[in-house]
């Protein structure tokens, strides 16, 4: 059993409900104990760091200080929370003066931080600690060659953390394959979906989302998978807007990678929050069961 301190991120209770549910659902079967960080607050994400960098680091540091008390690695499934917490941690460790200022403020709420926490992202934990081999061994509902486009997004692999190649990452492909699915070649797998600019610059972001969907379809994908809450929302919830703006008719389910893993582990759809996906994942589930039936009936 591997123990981790768990930082869900604000969206995992709201727009990324499916992520929040499925991560919890797959933890035990994969021998992970994800202990939710008690009384965690928002990491701040890009917006806070773009308005007041010193306040932003402080807000992030509160969570780091809480995590340090647990003595465990701090794992988050959200790419943005990861970039923010990892970046704040690095900056604090490199600048003693900043660490001093942050601790001066943290003292007011009886906390302090010494730079001992290791911030990690869930995909890196699944790839590095759990490993695709072990995941494969726990699969009891192989995905039967389902063609999946593995969409990394930006902040899972950039800036370069030394985990996966920023230009041509492979970790998600390996995880998809470990589930018995086929990871289709997907050249735009690490390109931007528009991120939070979907709100203030919708037209711009829809153009980027469209490119991603087109590239997935061109390469034969039946669905997309992604770990990032914002990417999933953009590709999933805004797919209909892409269709109306560009007169296309994409109908690609976008599953959180934790949801895809959950299906392969045989967990029921409700526990994985598959009913929260906007573009219905039923085509994916139907495909898997159809192939299973054909295999069973010996055709």
């Amino acid at each position, binding site marked *: 059993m591997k123990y981790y301190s768990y930082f869900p991120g*604000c*969206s995992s*209770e*709201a*727009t*990324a*409900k*499916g992520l929040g549910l499925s991560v919890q659902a797959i933890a035990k079967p994969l021998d992970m104990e994800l202990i939710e960080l008690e*009384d*965690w*607050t*928002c990491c*701040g*994400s*890009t*917006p*806070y*760091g*773009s*308005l*007041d*960098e*010193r*306040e932003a680091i*402080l*807000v992030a540091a*509160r969570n780091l200080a809480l995590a340090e008390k647990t003595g465990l690695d701090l794992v988050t499934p959200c790419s943005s929370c990861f970039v923010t917490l990892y970046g704040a941690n690095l*900056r604090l460790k490199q600048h003693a003066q*900043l660490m001093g*200022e942050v601790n*001066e*403020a*943290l003292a*007011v*709420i009886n906390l302090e931080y010494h730079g001992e926490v290791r911030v990690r992202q869930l995909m890196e934990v699944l790839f590095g600690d759990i490993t695709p081999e072990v995941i494969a061994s726990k699969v009891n509902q192989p995905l039967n060659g389902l063609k999946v486009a593995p969409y990394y997004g*930006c*902040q899972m692999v*950039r*800036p*370069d953390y030394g985990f996966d190649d*920023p230009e041509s990452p492979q970790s998600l492909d390996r995880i998809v394959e470990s589930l018995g699915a086929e990871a289709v070649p997907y050249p735009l797998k690490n*390109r*931007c979906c*528009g*991120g*939070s*600019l979907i*709100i*203030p*610059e919708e037209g*711009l972001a829809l153009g980027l989302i469209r490119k991603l969907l087109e590239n997935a379809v061109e390469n034969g994908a039946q669905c997309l998978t992604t770990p990032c809450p914002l990417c999933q*929302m953009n590709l999933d*919830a*805004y797919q*209909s*807007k892409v269709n109306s703006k560009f007169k296309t008719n994409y109908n690609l389910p976008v599953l959180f990678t934790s949801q895809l893993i959950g299906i392969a582990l045989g967990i029921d759809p409700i526990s994985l929050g598959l*009913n*929260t*996906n*906007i573009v219905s994942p039923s085509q994916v589930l139907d495909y898997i069961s159809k192939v299973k039936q054909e295999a069973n009936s010996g055709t």
Partner: protein
Amino acid sequence: MKNFVEEVTATPGGENIRACIQCGICTGSCPVANEMEYPPREIIAMIRAGMRDEVLSSNSMWYCLSCYMCTVRCPRGVKPTEMAHALECLANQQGFRVKGTRTPAMYRSFVSSIKGNGRVHEFGMMFRYYLATNPLAALKMLPVGLKLFLRKRMPLIPKRVKGKEDLSKLIKKLGEIRGSQ
């Protein structure tokens, strides 16, 4: 602070801009380069030229998606993404009004939501954002918003956490520390 270059290099995130050789690989890699008033490489050139007002009132850095493609490809280790964040902070803290983008308003709603709840309440943030910018635009968002709501991805009531009080205290203390500097 003798000049604008020094001001930027003294801001967290802007430290490495002196190494820039103006090769343009950052702009070449940027998914939104042509939307910005001035692309990243040009912003650095303008910083060197001391064009403080033009840079801080431009909409350039607010378009940054934080995709980090520029950072990964820059041959000199400049980190343009972090520079964009530094410029956004300078612009915000010094009260520059930006035309041609609503991103600052969205970021401000986001941060208000954090301060008010301890965590981001997405519905509340959107509500505040549209109220501040363009209430009618909220109607266009309705189809997506409704779908998300029906799939239980848009709770209307925020979850307030105890940590909210902590955040208020922290921010207040930081204000005192800053005041004394």
